[in-house]
């Protein structure tokens, strides 16, 4: 029960930071400012929760607590897909499409591409995880390079359209996307919770899980689809954030000392959201720095990664 209580405390922390964010220094016109703040708040919460949950699920699937979907190139894949889309349709053609439709299409594309790519890799290399992960990392570099490459082939005006998607920023969030992103996030979270018991077992490793009767390959496919959807939510809203998820997932594991994903996934989601909301509160309201958050979160996430590596006992 202790783990449940800790999850409750984390949720309380999130509520508290949301309250601070919304009400600190609130002046007239109340309604207008609240509305403005609420929109950004929703974006922060969605991105944080999606990153945290995606990383938690992903780490369990590949059996490594150091990696995030971002490190192995998921968001690079998203940026690449978006660049391809701009190339095919043209920046103007893209602007005519309603952005929610575009978001749904891109999410579906990312899920398909991620499944095809990483599913293939996993199936071929399930025994050789080291090679698989490195392949993913390099693939991410390749995709980033290809996206940059394709961007160079674009006209400057179209280049600007894509550029926005390839640099993390909380300043230019498309408000019309929020409801769709929220629905996608909720669906994906529900899916992740549904898979939670199987993920508990998968955390033991591929072979033990298989001897205990888990259809490991199928679980990996289902899980990767969810991860892809979650990554699409966060990347579409603010762009690639490689380490936010790592920060949230490793904190969740430290704080909720449980192996049960029913608790771990919500904890990672809540922590991811709380980190962003608190961080934005501190940087925007207290320090007056508008766009430092993405950089600082990445920095802190990187430090956490190094700390995790160095803490591991050499065996």
């Amino acid at each position, binding site marked *: 029960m202790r783990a449940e209580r800790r999850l409750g405390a984390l949720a309380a922390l999130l509520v508290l930071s949301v309250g601070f964010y919304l009400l600190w220094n609130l002046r007239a016109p109340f309604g207008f400012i609240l509305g403005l703040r609420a929109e950004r708040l929703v974006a922060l919460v969605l991105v944080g929760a999606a990153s945290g949950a995606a990383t938690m699920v992903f780490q369990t699937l590949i059996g490594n607590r150091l990696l995030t979907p971002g490190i192995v190139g998921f968001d690079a894949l998203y940026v690449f897909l978006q660049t391809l889309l701009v190339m095919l349709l043209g920046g103007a053609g893209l602007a005519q499409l309603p952005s929610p439709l575009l978001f749904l299409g891109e999410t579906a594309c990312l899920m398909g591409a991620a499944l095809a790519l990483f599913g293939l890799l996993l199936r071929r290399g399930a025994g050789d995880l080291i*090679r698989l992960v490195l392949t993913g990392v*390099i693939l991410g570099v390749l995709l980033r390079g290809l996206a940059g490459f394709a961007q160079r082939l674009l006209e400057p005006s179209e280049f600007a359209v894509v550029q926005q998607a390839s640099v993390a920023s909380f300043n230019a969030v498309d408000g019309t996307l929020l409801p769709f992103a929220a629905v996608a996030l909720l669906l994906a979270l529900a899916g992740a919770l549904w898979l939670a018991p199987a993920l508990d077992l998968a955390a033991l490793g591929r072979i033990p899980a298989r001897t205990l009767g888990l259809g490991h390959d199928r679980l990996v496919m289902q899980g990767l689809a969810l991860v892809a959807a979650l990554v699409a939510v966060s990347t579409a809203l603010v762009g690639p954030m490689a*380490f936010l998820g790592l920060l949230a997932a490793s904190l969740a594991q430290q704080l909720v000392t449980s192996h049960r994903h029913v608790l771990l996934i919500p904890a990672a989601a809540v922590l991811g959201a709380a980190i962003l909301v608190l961080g934005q509160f501190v940087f925007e309201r207290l320090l007056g720095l508008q766009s430092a958050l993405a950089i600082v979160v*990445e920095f802190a996430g990187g430090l956490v990664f190094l700390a995790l*590596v160095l803490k591991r006992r050499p065996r």
Partner: protein
Amino acid sequence: MRAGAGIAAGLVLLAALSLAIGATNLWSGPLDSGMVLAVSRIPRTLAAMLAGAGLALAGVVVQQSVQNRLVEPGLTGTPEAAMLGLLAVTLLAPGAPLLAKMGVAALTALLGTAGFFALSRHVPRRDPMLLPLVGLIYAGILGSIALGAAWATDLVQYLWSWQSGEFSGVLRGRYELLWLVAGMALLLYLLADRITLLGLGEDYARSLGLNYRQTLLMGLGIVALTTAVIVVSVGAMPFVGLVVPNLVSRWRGDNLRRNLPLVAAAGAGFVLAADVLGRLLRWPYEIPAAMVFAVFGAGLFLWLLNRPRVRHEG
């Protein structure tokens, strides 16, 4: 030696191509073709070859020093540390001569590389892929410090120009620092056997009578200086130091003294080819050579990684 002759012939061919291709038509253009060659094309071709050779050799040294084939200067924080040094000089002493800027960049690059090396000793050796990941993240941290600093001081444009290596800005009088790379290469050739011993690990190297610390420091110094010169002159070029040494080692084994010239030549050839391709792909505009190489280099590396391992003959 037939391989050496083949590579040399390829290099000459590429260099000829590089001299002939560009936005200005040499034969019927409005400019004097002799001047175009002397001011732009020849320096550019030389710069690409020097940078490629230097990065490939630096890759070899890094791989031997940390005993991991999957690491390269781009994964040890070296370019990012050099950029931090450059930023600092640009802020504190904007009027400093280029040589002084470079000296500072080389120094911070050495510090950054040494930091990675210190870190690498605490990384469990069991997973060979862990070290490149640690390097990636270490470089990312240094990079985010640099980005933050640049962002706070409106120097982001500078940073971008250092981040993506390209040769379109190379002119006579602005690339000569790169000849330092040639000096480094010579030094490395003299040290080849010691660097090979580094690759056997500290205990073994010591038992064979090597002054481990001194050799290591020299090796890292060469890497830092080479990388700093390249970052200052043309910008960072990831993957060259990773792909080229691995390709050569797959092909010819691991005798360093015999391989170093090959590694240098192959590095020069690959980077020059990337530059030529970058000029052709979207003529008359240019795509940075680093970007071209990242795409092909990553592709090559993926192939290396997933190809079934074949034994190479001596």
